[in-house]
């Protein structure tokens, strides 16, 4: 039997350990990572500047809800964006969702961003509060920086060559690309970097061009290390230009890389050197070419920015339209807004939507389209906003205003869409169904075959689960696997106890002595005439059973000594003796000479309880 129990415990331990090991192994990468972190790009700002708040939520081991921003007293959110990063390292996938908020301070002083919370499976995780010191600015509001993280461009492919020569360091200065630089005097390699503007406005686009001149064949592709572009947001022109030119009697292959920069700080700002590493060959060493830093003097934007201005610099247009002017309650209208033009399209702040409570709006998913046109970044940003009317009347979708700073005219411009009137009826046919039968053939796919008819949509369930996580990812679930182990130990302990109980009558008497004594006291209450006698008897019997020996024949001193040897306190021993004495004298004394019978029994009961603890 013992062997069997041991085997059972071993099986339990092995199974529980095995089952715990698998998820622990699979989830080992996210054990110590915090679920949510929040950082800001600066803690000292002026009212002209913005703060980038980046919240990162680890989705690897759970499915948290969207982070809850606290009340941002002293700040206004002027732009937000989010993105998901998936990585698989050493066979373990991790997913992080990043939310970025551009905050503009609206008051000076020490401001606090209260803890940001995220709910994971009913448990709330929060960040630490963030303190930001805001000082009074000059009134020149800076454009909102691009929230995207700087990206290292991929290495371009350069023509090959066979020999290596010295490189030249070249200061950045605008030059005609069709003309070779004057410093190019017959070297094998040469690089030069230039910008098209040396005094741009804050947020105005600047074209940065790097040219690599190569007159020899290379063994391997050179490696391009672009500048960090600190103080700029940048967009790389994906296509490189290649052409040839003659200089100093040699033919040079020229590779041209362009990057659009958007200054984000005012004053003198340097573009760090760009580097090109030429790999070594069998008979020669590699070498590194480096440009000189280029310094720009970034101008502040003029004051008197309109209230709807949110930092756009360039030249833009705005257009909007609705898909229908006639609908019924709860049937949606799609508002499409497109902002197009030249400037930092990816960095445009979302328009301020002004629909009232008569519309239920679903967040728009903006889509960007950008292209390089003659050294400029241009494109459009389109929002499709679904608006569901909640009232049957003629409703207005308000005009949308958009302001930008035009660096060509050095002035602010405000453009706006028209407002839209939508007739909403309480009932009607509503939307004209393009495919009332969802299995009809009007789909993007050719679904004419009956076998291709997909089954229809499902209605919403009455309840759904939000922010749930797999049970197997919860430590509590795996702890439950150990529950039988504890129950088995409890069972075995109980069996042992019962066994001892049954095999040892004296031990049983000892354990039950107090209970028996209390029962006797309760019985004595019903016989007041015999109280004093009973009290002494009950006490003596209790002590005898507790010590598993007879004490009725002992003298007072012997009983004292016995109790003392059992560790009973002197005070308690004295009270035992008093009780026995009282019992004996009470039998012979006149009524009223001693304490009342009830009081005597109460004292005796208390004494038994104290002795039960002491023995």
């Amino acid at each position, binding site marked *: 039997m013992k062997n069997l*129990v041991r085997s059972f415990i071993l099986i*339990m331990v092995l*199974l529980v350990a095995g*089952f715990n090991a*698998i998820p622990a192994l*699979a989830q080992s990468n996210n054990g110590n990572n915090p679920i949510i972190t929040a950082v800001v790009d600066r803690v000292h700002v002026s009212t002209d500047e913005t703060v980038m708040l980046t919240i990162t939520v680890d989705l690897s081991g759970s499915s*948290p*809800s*969207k982070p809850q921003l606290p009340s941002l007293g002293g700040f206004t959110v002027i732009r937000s964006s989010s993105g998901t990063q*998936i990585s*698989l*390292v050493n*066979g*373990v*996938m991790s997913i992080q969702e990043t939310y970025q908020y551009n905050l503009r301070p609206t008051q000076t002083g020490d401001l606090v961003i209260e803890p940001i919370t995220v*709910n994971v*499976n*009913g448990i709330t995780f929060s960040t630490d509060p963030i303190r930001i010191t805001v000082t009074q600015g000059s009134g020149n509001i800076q454009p909102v920086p691009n929230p995207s993280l700087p990206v290292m461009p*991929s290495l371009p492919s350069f023509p090959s060559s066979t020999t290596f020569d010295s490189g030249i360091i070249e200061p950045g200065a605008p030059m005609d690309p069709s003309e070779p630089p004057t410093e190019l005097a017959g070297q094998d390699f040469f690089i030069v970097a230039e910008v098209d503007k040396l005094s741009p406005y804050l947020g105005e686009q600047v074209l940065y061009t790097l040219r690599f001149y190569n007159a020899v064949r290379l063994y391997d592709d050179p490696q391009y290390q672009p500048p960090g572009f600190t103080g700029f947001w940048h967009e790389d022109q994906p296509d490189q230009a290649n052409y040839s030119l003659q200089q100093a009697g040699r033919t040079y292959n020229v590779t041209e890389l362009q990057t659009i920069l958007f200054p984000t700080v005012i004053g003198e700002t340097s573009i760090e050197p760009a580097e090109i590493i030429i790999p070594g060959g069998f008979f020669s060493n590699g070498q590194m070419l480096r440009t000189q830093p280029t310094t720009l003097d970034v101008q502040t934007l003029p004051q008197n920015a309109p209230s709807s201005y949110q930092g756009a610099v360039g030249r833009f247009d705005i257009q909007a339209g609705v898909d229908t002017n006639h609908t019924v309650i*709860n*049937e*949606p209208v*799609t508002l499409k807004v497109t902002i197009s033009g030249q400037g930092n399209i990816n960095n445009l702040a979302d328009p301020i939507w002004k629909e009232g409570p008569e519309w*239920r709006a*679903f*967040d*728009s*998913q903006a889509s960007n389209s950008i292209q390089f046109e003659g050294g400029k970044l241009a494109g459009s940003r389109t929002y*499709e906003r*679904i608006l569901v009317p909640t009232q049957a009347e003629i409703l207005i979708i308000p005009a949308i205003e958009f302001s930008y700073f035009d660096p060509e005219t050095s002035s602010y411009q405000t453009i706006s869409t028209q407002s839209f009137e939508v007739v909403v009826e309480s009932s009607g046919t*509503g939307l004209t*169904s393009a495919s*009332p039968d969802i299995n009809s053939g*009007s*789909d993007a*796919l050719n679904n004419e075959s009956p076998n*291709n*008819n*997909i*089954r229809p*949509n499902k*209605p*919403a*369930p009455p*309840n*759904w*689960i*939000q*922010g*749930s996580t797999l*049970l*197997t990812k*919860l430590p*509590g679930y795996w702890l439950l696997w150990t*529950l*039988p182990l504890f*129950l088995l130990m409890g*069972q075995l302990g*109980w069996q042992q106890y*019962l066994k001892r109980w049954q095999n040892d009558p004296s031990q049983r008497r000892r354990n039950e002595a107090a209970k028996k004594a209390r029962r006797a006291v309760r019985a004595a209450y019903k016989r007041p005439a015999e109280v004093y006698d009973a009290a002494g008897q009950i006490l003596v019997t209790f002590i005898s059973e507790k010590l598993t020996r007879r004490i009725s024949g002992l003298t007072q001193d012997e009983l004292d000594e016995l109790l003392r040897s059992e560790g009973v306190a002197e005070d308690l021993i004295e009270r035992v003796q008093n009780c026995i004495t009282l019992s004996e004298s009470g039998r012979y004394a006149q009524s009223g000479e001693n304490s009342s019978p009830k009081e005597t029994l109460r004292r005796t009961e208390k004494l038994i309880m104290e002795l039960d603890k002491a023995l």
Partner: protein
Amino acid sequence: MRNLIMLAVTGLVLIIGLLVAINMSAHSLEADIEAVSIANKLYESGQYDQATQILEQIISQGVQDSAIYYNLGNVYYKQGDLGRAIVNYERAALMNPRDSDIQANLTIVRNQAEQSESLPAIAAGPVDSITRLIGTWLSVDETAILALSIWFAFSLLFLVWLQLEPGKARTGMGYAALMTLLLVAVLGLSLGNRIYNEKVHPTAVVVANEITINSQPGDQYATEYSLHNGAEVILLGTQGDWAHLSTPGETLEGWIPLSAVEYV
């Protein structure tokens, strides 16, 4: 009598433990019926972009519901985006594997995407076969609850067996305990295998129209092989913006841009 009470207490504790496990991960709340209804109306009227927008927004709020993923799969299918349709049907099937609508639509879309069958496990063996079989009937959470329940049942049977005097009842109880132990082992292995595969070899679906498989992470390493929209693959790793993957049966292995796949 005392033994009987102790066993009853043990059973009660195990049942409470099971109820705790069942309620551990579920946090249900009232569904936004209006939003789903609007999305369904948009779907029925052929306004698939808008329907997608609403359903994606619901999901972005942390909602985990098989019906929402199923509906989103339908919308993507109607838009001709077989890859995203498969991804969302697969997600729905993970939550509700016994739903015949999900399985039917998944089969149709897979057929159209020339993905005739679901992915086999990387190294198909008996454990993988059992895992797949159980996976067609039970979600991960359901398997976890069932395994725990049988584990508890085995523990209780064993404790009863300990109390019984030698005889037929005790022998029968012993066999029952052994059977449950066997079931625990099968379910436990299947569960562990499933967790391991989903974590270490997650499945993904190609959502780009057609994408060339590269031998290395980089555009310059293009090969003559390509994957079509809706192809189901196993993610082996990532490097920068590139995903390392293998195709069913490990017939092909290579790299494609990470943005061209969505993991299930």
